[in-house]
């Protein structure tokens, strides 16, 4: 089943778009996502200012930079990325399966519950109740609620997918697997190292969790989305179905095996560390096949990728994905780890993956979907262009700067320089990062404003509360 035949047909036999997609909810998810993105960037800015010792609000307990650093990462992961993914899934899954989600009320309940989880996490973190697990800082009392939320998400989206007959399209492989993985990953990471195992074993589980959260929650939802939107925008099927298969199964097999690469040279047994290194390098080969598939799909479409803004977002993200994975294959080797672990190199890598790849994809999808849902053009397409260039440019400067700075930090430490030498040499890098961050921040604010003004322009008659009839265009 190819994406093309599946999506654009508006035959009478097929259910109507407005019966399938809860458009209002998609928009709500986007608004929530962008709101948390703003919160996260405020937090990032605070931490960035702290590092260059210009924290304008020092010595205030609830503005403790350490706490806000955790808000920065959690608001991005659970507030921005997760919300945007949920919104996009509300569009993609019903359209691919031709079945609505299990239950409309449940969809809204999940929306509310998820916002509660993210807000409660932020409040908990502000009041110093973090859980000592990277990416799992959500206070322990919220974990069961989040777990239940993820179960509901799996049921609500799983139902239409499970009702489909026969082989499924690539996107649904990724989505279906991600629904299972996210639930399992969250359970493993938040409960096992907190209640059951300690020390190095907890480190091994924690590493799995950090990694699976990126690899088994964000990555499959991201790629699933790409396999859906890229063929639609290019109006052609994926270049090679075989490579799609290799990409999915390679990812499914190798990704979960590499958690420990976050804790190399720790007391975790060495052979496990080597195993994680090897499967990381193996995964890079798989990633190359995925990239080839997407470049192959693009091949021969002329300058479409330049002129079409959402496509440009997608392929920029794919380019950054290639870069991060290449970087990963290098940085995972023990030689490189000795130098760059603990430095800003890793932070540069993290921003490139989280913003350069997944956020860029999601922003691209938003750029594409918002006018379709609101049934009006963007208030300003020029601002959309600015949003793209400032995001991509800011990110490029930010991660390039941090990656380079990380090398110098590593060398300074290995040379047994006094600690403040490494701080002093980091200052220029931290300053550039902050400026680049503010550019990214400004771009997102502009996008939000554009979104708001577009919404205000939206025709009243086709107000989003009652979906317009007869719309089945892609």
């Amino acid at each position: 089943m190819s994406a093309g035949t599946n999506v654009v047909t508006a035959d009478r036999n097929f259910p109507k778009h407005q019966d399938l997609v809860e458009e209002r909810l998609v928009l709500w998810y986007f608004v929530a996502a962008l709101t948390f993105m703003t919160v996260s960037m405020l937090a990032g800015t605070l931490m960035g200012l702290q590092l260059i010792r210009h924290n304008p609000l020092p010595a205030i307990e609830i503005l403790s930079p350490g706490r806000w650093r955790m808000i920065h990462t959690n608001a991005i992961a659970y507030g921005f990325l997760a919300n945007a993914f949920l919104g996009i899934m509300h569009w993609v899954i019903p359209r691919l399966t031709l079945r609505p989600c299990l239950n409309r009320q449940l969809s809204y309940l999940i929306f509310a519950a998820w916002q509660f989880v993210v807000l409660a996490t932020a409040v908990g973190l502000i009041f110093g109740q973090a859980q000592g697990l990277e990416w799992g800082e959500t206070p322990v009392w919220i974990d069961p609620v989040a777990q239940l939320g993820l179960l509901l998400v799996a049921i609500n989206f799983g139902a239409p997918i499970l009702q489909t007959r026969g082989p499924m399209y690539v996107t649904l492989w990724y989505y279906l697997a991600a629904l299972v993985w996210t639930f399992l990953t969250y359970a493993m990471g938040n409960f096992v190292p907190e209640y059951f195992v300690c020390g190095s074993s907890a480190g091994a589980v924690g590493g799995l969790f950090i990694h699976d959260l990126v690899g088994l929650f964000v990555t499959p939802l991201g790629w699933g989305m790409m396999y859906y939107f890229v063929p639609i925008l290019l109006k052609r099927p994926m270049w090679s179905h075989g490579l799609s298969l290799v990409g999915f199964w390679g990812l499914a097999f190798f990704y979960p095996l590499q958690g420990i690469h976050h804790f190399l040279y720790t007391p975790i047994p060495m052979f496990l560390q080597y195993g994680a290194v090897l499967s990381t390098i193996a995964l890079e080969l798989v990633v190359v096949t995925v990239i080839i598939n997407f470049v192959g799909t693009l091949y021969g479409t002329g300058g479409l990728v330049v002129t079409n803004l959402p496509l440009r977002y997608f392929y920029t993200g794919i380019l950054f994905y290639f870069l991060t994975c290449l970087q990963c294959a290098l940085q995972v080797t023990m030689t490189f780890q000795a130098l760059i672990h603990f430095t800003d190199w890793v932070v540069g890598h993290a921003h490139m993956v989280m913003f350069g790849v997944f956020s860029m994809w999601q922003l691209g999808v938003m750029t594409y979907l918002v006018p379709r849902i609101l049934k009006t053009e963007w208030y300003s397409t020029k601002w959309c262009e600015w949003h793209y260039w400032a995001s991509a440019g800011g990110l490029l400067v930010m991660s390039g700067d941090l990656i380079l700075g990380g090398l110098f930090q590593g060398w300074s430490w290995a040379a047994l320089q006094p600690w403040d030498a490494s701080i002093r040499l980091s200052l220029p890098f931290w300053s550039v990062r902050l400026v680049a961050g503010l550019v990214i921040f400004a771009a997102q604010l502009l996008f939000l404003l554009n979104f708001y003004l577009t919404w205000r322009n939206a025709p009243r008659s086709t107000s989003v509360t009652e979906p317009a009839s007869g719309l089945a265009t892609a």
Partner: protein
Amino acid sequence: MFERKSGIILIAGIGFFALAFLSNAVVPVLMYQHMPEKSVKELINGNLRYQFEDLAQRFPEAFEKAYGQPPADPEQASTWYNDHCESALKLGHQIYVGEGCWHCHSQFVRPVSNEDRRWGPVSKSWEYQNELQRPVMFGTRRVGPDLCREGGRRSSDWQAVHFFNPEALSVGSPMPRYPWLFDGAPDKPTIRGLALLTYIQWLGSWHETYPYYEDYIPVPIKTASKTE
């Protein structure tokens, strides 16, 4: 199989996940089975007790305000100190986690990059088999130095002033200030301040190299007194 629901849920979704969990998590758990997890009470050692009682000497008013007076009977006083030391360690750990100290400080010394010369012996698994390493505080980023050999390296006075205002002691430090752990002055730590000091002084107190200083060579007198 490869494009069907059952294959994706069972093989990829559950199977591969379980395989990774078994090989990457269950294996180390089984390997460390012979090292039972220590409770916080079991973590209190002579070095730490010394540091805790030292806090009572340095900050008598703050200490009394936080914990009251120790009983006169030496036997009972000892239990009293142990009990409060235990609760201080727990609270200190909670603050360390809640303030996100672990996002700027690691707690393990690697066998590479000259780290053992800077911070002391390379970390071993047995050091982490305790309640305060659940979840483990390895950390993934070092804006500041590693802390797993920090105990005893600096006096609690230094640590208190440093928490109150890092720049007072370490010019140009990007470490945030933590004045809310004090009653307005560095010599007046609150119960939370005392707890964090206890936690920091605990780090590495279990190790034979305690207290560790860079390139520390024992003075001849100490070596001489050993031979006697």
